[in-house]
């Protein structure tokens, strides 16, 4: 979708609110290491793979942030930051700016504040997050469904129909599963749950997807209780 910067699309959001969010971005400990000022050389755009395929520009992000254009930063925080693939090819700026890392901070602020556009952008990743956080492994083989991965071509149906057989054909026993990438030990998964609990990750998820938060808490509290951590609560 084209990025429309011709009007103040979010005029209904107060300037104070936009200023508050930008202040949160600038208060981040990384800010002073990623934003130095931009002279528009365009090296970041030339290196950016997303700029080739989307109406997206790391230079616009760096410029808006450097000029402290509060309205524009808010628009970009909603309509542009999710087009970045976070590859950090833009980390070749002669002024040592990092548009990619500025975007990381902007995304985190968008998530922490529950912006609607952040929820929409992350909607499609719900099951991937559920898989990582409940099983400790990333995507699961059974995601290979014709409706989820049509870009795999016609043979994706054949793969998904016979997935259990394909997985059993893999030599390591830890891969004989279709629901997780590989088997994870109890000790590892309990430690992961505790890290996510202590670092506030669960609070972030609650702000973006309440349903996902609920089912993760269900899984985590039960397993933590089994491991003797029955005093851990996500409320």
């Amino acid at each position, binding site marked *: 979708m084209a990025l429309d910067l011709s009007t103040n699309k979010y005029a209904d959001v107060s300037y104070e609110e936009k200023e508050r969010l930008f202040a949160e971005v600038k208060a981040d400990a990384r800010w002073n290491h990623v934003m130095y000022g931009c002279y528009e050389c365009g090296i970041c755009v030339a290196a950016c793979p997303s700029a080739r395929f989307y109406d997206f520009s790391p230079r616009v992000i760096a410029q808006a942030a450097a000029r402290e254009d509060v309205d524009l930063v808010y628009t970009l925080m909603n309509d542009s930051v999710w087009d970045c693939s976070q590859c950090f090819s833009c980390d070749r700026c002669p002024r040592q700016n990092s548009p990619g890392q500025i975007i990381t901070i902007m995304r985190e602020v968008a998530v922490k504040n529950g912006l609607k556009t952040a929820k929409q952008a992350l909607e499609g990743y*719900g099951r*991937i997050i*559920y898989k990582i956080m409940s099983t400790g492994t990333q995507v699961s083989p059974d995601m290979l*469904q014709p*409706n989820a*991965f049509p870009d795999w071509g016609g043979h994706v149906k054949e793969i998904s129909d016979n997935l259990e057989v394909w997985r059993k054909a893999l030599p390591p026993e830890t891969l004989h599963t279709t629901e997780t990438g590989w088997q994870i030990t109890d000790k590892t998964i309990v430690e992961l749950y505790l890290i996510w609990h202590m670092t506030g990750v669960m609070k972030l998820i609650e702000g973006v997807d309440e*349903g996902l938060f609920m*089912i993760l808490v269900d899984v985590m509290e039960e397993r933590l209780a089994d491991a003797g951590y029955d005093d851990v609560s996500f409320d």
Partner: protein
Amino acid sequence: MEHEKINECVIMKDLYYSVEDNTWIRVNEDGSVTVGMTDIAQNLAGPILHAKAKSAGTDRKKGKPIATVESGKWVGPVKSPISGVITEVNEKLVGDAQLINRSPYRDGWVVKMKPESLEAELKELVTGDNAVAAYKTKIEHDNIKACTHIEGSDTYE
């Protein structure tokens, strides 16, 4: 059984719905209730891979998850439309979760529950023509795409 179709999505008029959470309940003669996902919910989820219900004996407050449902890229809770104790889990879903896609209102039910305060909570759910009207509004408001039904789905003619 009397029903209505909105944008190819079926609404059974004899059930009680939590429209926001896309769940239904049927009040059984013995006072228990059967809980399931709506046709709209199965459509939004797409072909379902896993439906894991909480075990029998679990006490749940209204709005808390009674099951986790996973499709290719989506995961979400089935939120309980009422408060009560789960008395039975639909074991058929363990090996065949797409039963929810094919028969959301009949064989694809999720759990049965012993309600805690059914009379009061029924008032917060909608049924009959009110349910149809509420779903009409929701489908238009949320711009929900027309329901599709996989091979072998129940017919409602």
